[in-house]
Structures are given as C-alpha cells and as structure tokens.
C-alpha cells in the first residue's frame, strides 16, 4: 500500500458557496489544488418559467421575463416584447424605440457593474465591489424614477412602453452619464494595470475563437475571443441602427480580455445613451396594438443582445388561444455556462471562482 493517499479529491463547490453567484453547484475533482475534471450541476433555481408562460396571456408573460435574468430585467422584457411584435407585425413608434434603447443600455451598465463588482471580489479586490454598487445604485434610481421599480421593472409593453419618461428624466440621465464616465477610471486604476490583477486574469481560461463559436458562446465571452459578433450591430433592433458605437473585441480570449471588453462596453453604452437622449423624437409611446393580444398562427425567433450575450425568444402561436402554444428561451447564461468545465480544466481552485465570475452567469436565467 502506498504511504500516502493519492486519489483525487472531490470538492463540492456550491450550491451554498460565496462565489458561485447564487445556487450553482460545481463538483470539482482535484489533484492537489489543480482541477482535473468538473461537473456543473444546475437546476437549483428552476421555477418552470417557460412552462408557466404557456399558461399566461401575452401581457402577463412580461412579468415572468423579469424573473429570469433578475439583474437585467429590462433586457428580457425588451427581448420578449419585440418577439411578440415580430410575430404580430406591430409597428413600434420611434420615441418608444429610443426610450427602449436607453433603458436597455442603462440596464447593460447596471448589469456590468454587478458583474465587475462580483468578479473583482472573487479575485479579492473588495473595494471595486463597493464602488460598482455605488454606481449601480444610480441606475436603479433612474429606473425607479421611470417605472417605480428597482429590480423587476416590467418596463416594456407589447407595441411600445407603459409610460412616457417623467419630466426632467432626460436631464438626470445626462447627468448620470457624465458622472459615471468619471467613475470608470476609478475601477481601471484599481484593476487594469494592477500587476496582481493581470497575473490573476491573463492567460487564465483561454478560449479560442473557433472553440467559442463551436460552444455557442455569445456576448462578451465571444467578443473576448476576437469574434466581432454583436446582435446590436449585426441585426439591429430597437433604435440601434441610428447610433454610432463600436464593438470592442479581445485578442487572446482570456479572462483579462473579457474584462477589458466589458469595461469598454461601459463607455460604448454611455455613447449610445447620449446619442439617444439627444435625438429623442416626439410622438406616441405605444403603437397600434389590438385590445386582445392573439397572434396569428405561426412561430418566430428573435434575439437581442443582453449584457450577458444573445438572449433569444422562440414563440409558437396556434392562432386560437391568448397564450403561447410553445414558449422557449435561449438564455445566454445557460449557453455560456457550458464552457465552464472546459475553461477550468487544468487551472487551480483559485481560478475556478475567477472563471465562474468571468462567464457572468445569473442562475435565475440558467435555470429559469
């Protein structure tokens, strides 16, 4: 018998663990601290939202989409409503499209704030976490001014918006943009050129462009690997076609590149918001929508760019009922999460938390 036990150590990370971002469970097989294999176990937050949607009418579903990616609820609202509009061929007035774009981009900033904060905290930089929450609070205040809610907004309606922006809101958004722009360097100062941050993120969890495409990754994960794919640019929705913005891409596809991509997206989002506020057209906020929403028989798929990647909705209608016949979501968190076992293989336990953070998952969206 060998003197020492040299078997693999099976470490159960989660579902209750400080850095698994909710109730994700990762079963790690370790050799020392090196990961030789892993199983990702999901489903702890499954609420059957897709099935539930098939038993709710089209207006009620907006509320359920809030509960999927609860840190960027407005994006899910928008994706769902646009899908139904596509199915029913409803024209959305330009003012509504502009306000939707502003909401979506504010939401992107809030979501990236939360991501950067938790990701930095996973790597041990606690202060960045609180700085990000400080600024995320401002976005939540803007949303509160707009629709009264701070987390689950229910902010978009089929065919337009429930509310016009309150008086002075555009000025508040402008002020916020100026303030936030001055705060981005604060995060960068603490991280971007920090040697420890670089050593912890560079060449960690490298994924090549081919692999990223083959795994069906999207969003900053895909762009970090150097693929300039952004639904906002490639298949413009809402009012994105009217605005100038760049799609930042990485080169190597490591954790550091994904970090840089997201930080640059802060700036691009601000650019879009400013253009949208400046060019905000007058007019109605709700298009011609029938009183009873009953789409014609048929099916459609529509995808938008959520902060985490491509969020797509598939809706099939039988043309007879006021509920979808089939409702299916392509959640970016779920698709991106499948890269995790591949990313963490060969790395250390300390990198596992960095990589879970780097993917940017929300378990509510993974499990639905």
């Amino acid at each position, binding site marked *: 018998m060998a003197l020492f036990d040299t078997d693999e150590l099976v470490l159960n990370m989660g579902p209750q663990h*400080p850095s698994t971002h909710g109730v994700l469970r990762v079963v790690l097989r370790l050799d020392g601290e090196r990961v030789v294999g892993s199983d990702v176990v999901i489903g702890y937050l499954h609420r059957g939202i897709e099935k539930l949607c098939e038993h709710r009418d089209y207006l009620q579903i907006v509320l359920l989409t809030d509960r999927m990616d609860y840190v960027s609820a407005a994006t899910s609202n928008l994706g769902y409503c646009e899908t139904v509009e596509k199915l029913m061929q409803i024209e959305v007035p330009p003012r509504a499209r502009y306000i939707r774009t502003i909401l979506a981009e504010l939401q992107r900033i809030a979501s990236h704030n939360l991501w950067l904060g938790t990701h930095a905290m996973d790597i041990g*930089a606690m202060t960045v976490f609180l700085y990000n929450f400080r600024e995320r609070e401002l976005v939540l205040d803007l949303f509160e001014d707009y629709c009264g809610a701070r987390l689950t907004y229910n902010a978009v309606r089929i065919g337009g918006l429930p509310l016009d922006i309150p008086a002075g809101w555009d000025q508040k958004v402008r002020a916020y943009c100026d303030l936030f722009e001055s705060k981005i360097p604060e995060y960068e100062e603490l991280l971007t050129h920090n040697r420890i941050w670089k050593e*912890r993120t560079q060449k960690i969890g490298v994924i090549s462009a081919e692999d990223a495409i083959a795994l069906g990754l999207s969003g900053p994960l895909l762009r970090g690997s150097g693929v300039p794919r952004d639904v906002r640019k490639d298949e413009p929705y809402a009012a994105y076609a009217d605005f100038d913005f760049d799609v930042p891409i990485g080169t190597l596809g490591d954790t550091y590149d994904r970090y840089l991509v997201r930080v640059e997206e802060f700036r691009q989002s601000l650019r879009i918001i400013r253009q949208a506020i400046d060019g905000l057209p007058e007019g109605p906020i709700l298009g011609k929508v029938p009183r009873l929403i009953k789409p014609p028989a048929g099916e459609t798929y529509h995808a938008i760019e959520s902060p985490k990647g491509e969020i797509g909705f598939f809706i099939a209608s039988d043309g007879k009922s006021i509920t979808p016949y089939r409702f299916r979501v392509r959640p970016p968190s779920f698709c991106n999460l499948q890269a995790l076992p591949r990313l963490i293989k060969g790395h*250390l336990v300390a990198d596992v938390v960095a990589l879970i953070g780097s993917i940017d998952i929300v378990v509510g969206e993974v499990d639905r």
Partner: protein
Amino acid sequence: MSAYFIAHFLLIFLVFNMLVMSAAFMVWMERKVCAYIQDRVGPNRVGVEGLLQPFADVLKLLMKEELRPKAADAFLFTIAPIVSAAAAFTAFSVIPFGSETTLFGLLDRPLPLEVTDVNVAVLVIFAITSMGVYGIVLAGWSSNSKYSLLGGLRSSAQMISYELSYGLALAAVIVLGGSLSLRELVLNQTGYWFHVIPRWYIFLQPLGFLIYLTAGVAETNRAPFDFPEAEQELVAGYHTEYSSMSFAMFFLAEYINMVTVSAVATSLYLGGWLGPILPSWLGWLWFLLKVLLLLFFYVWMRWTLPRYRYDQLMEFGWKWLLPAAVVNLIATAALVLWIG
C-alpha cells in the same frame, strides 16, 4: 517582594492587556479605514464612532454555541486556536517598546519597558512566530473538512516560500547591528547623520525593509496573501468549522501577529522608540506612532489589492524575494567587512 518585582509584574499585565486592546482597536481601525476607502461610513452605532464595536462583536461571539464537527479530531481541533493565540502573545514578550524608567524614582534600578530582555530576541521572535503556522495547519487538518484542509495546505506551502527570505532580511540587520538583542539593535540606531537623517536601519537597508514587509504580509496571512482563509475560494479556509470563542482566538491571533510584525519592523528598521522632540521617557509614544503607521499600511494594502494565487506567491518567494534577500545579506556583510 521588591518594588521592582511588582512593577515588572504590572508591566507584564499591562502588555498582555494592551495586546488584547490593540487587537480590538485594530478591528475597529480596519473596519473604519476600509469603510472610508470604500466610500462608506463604517461602524458608528456602538460607542463614539463605533469604537465599542469590537467589544460588541466579542460579546456576540461569547454567546455563540461552540460547535465541533463529529468527524473532527477533538484534541487537535481544540488545541489549534490555542497554539495560534499563544504564539501570537508570546512573540511580543521580547519586544522593547520604550527606554528604561525608574517610575520617577520609585524603583531602586531602572525598569526596561519590555516583558523580558533576551539576548537572542530576534531568534526568539523568529522561532515563535513560525509556531503560529502550526495552529493553522492543525486547524485545517483536524477539522476534517475539505475546505479547511486546503486552507491548511496552502498555509504550509506559503510558509516555506516566505520564511527563508524573512529570516535573511533579519540576518542583514543583525550583521549591521552586531547583536541579537532587540534593545541593543534599537540603541544602535541612536543619533543622526548630518544632524537631519536619523540613524535608522531603514536608510541602510531599504531593500531589506521591503523584503521584510512583504514577507510580513505573508506571515500574518493578510491580503494580498490571505490564501489560507481566502473567503471567495475556500469559504473561510482553515477556520471554516470554527465558531464562537475558538474562532475569536484565530481572529485575535491574526491581529496580534500584525501588531508583532509591525513592532519588530519598527524596532529593526525604524529606530523603535527613538525619535525627536519627545523626552526619552515618552519614547513609547514614538513607538506607538510608528507601529500604527505600519498597521495602517497593512490595512490600506488589504483593501486596495486583489489576492495573489498561492502558486504565484511561491514563485515570487523563491524566484524574487529569496535571491533579493541573499544579495542584500551578502552586500551588507561585504560592506560591514570593508568599512569595519
């Protein structure tokens, strides 16, 4: 029983209590400084500006149930926090924090302001602070929990990577001062160069001071080298399974170790209790100020930097810190030989 003996006894009592108090104060300072760094207010409910917060925390911990996992090794599990705390307290006993005093003529001979003046004080400190790591390794192993085990393993991996450079940095000062007694080393730093620059060893040993500080962070398991407890990775590392007062012991040990490391740095590099303006019997104020500055530096660093990875620390320790410490020692020795 002579007055001297009573005074000495009281001094020991005072040092012990001041250490506990300094840990409490450090907890408060850590929370307050980190709050200001993070744009928050920090504790401000218990006492003036939250000064009593640490005492409220201790009270809470006292009332908690003492839990021990069934699978844990009962003896080692119990003794581990005691080892940690005892090592932390003992190490401070040989550190002088002021010059001698006769308490305004009350004593027949002057009483040095330290618990005991050992002629090999540097070695004693080195030996005892290294004992502290046993507390962590034993806690990690005896808990019989995977996260704790990983924390304990990291701790031992960490120790072998900084301890050598730590020792070599100290050795350079010993070569320079020609003594192993901390009191003598401090007294060697009396006086000024060109009437302005104090004769502190930091000016002769800038590299050694940096090496000592870096190794000191690793020694006290503080961020960016806080791998054994790395909250985000190992939940709480070696003290995952500890609760109530045995957890508080680890907590206490961590802060006292910080004070000890800062106090040793003050004595060896910053001239201990020596300083201008104040009369010599108030020298301990200088000592306190210098230690506080170093402690602030540790807190500042913790809340600014991300965490290293433990293999990166090992690489850093062996490839950079150790060669630098060796070069520093050889250069110092050569200079001392050359100048005499």
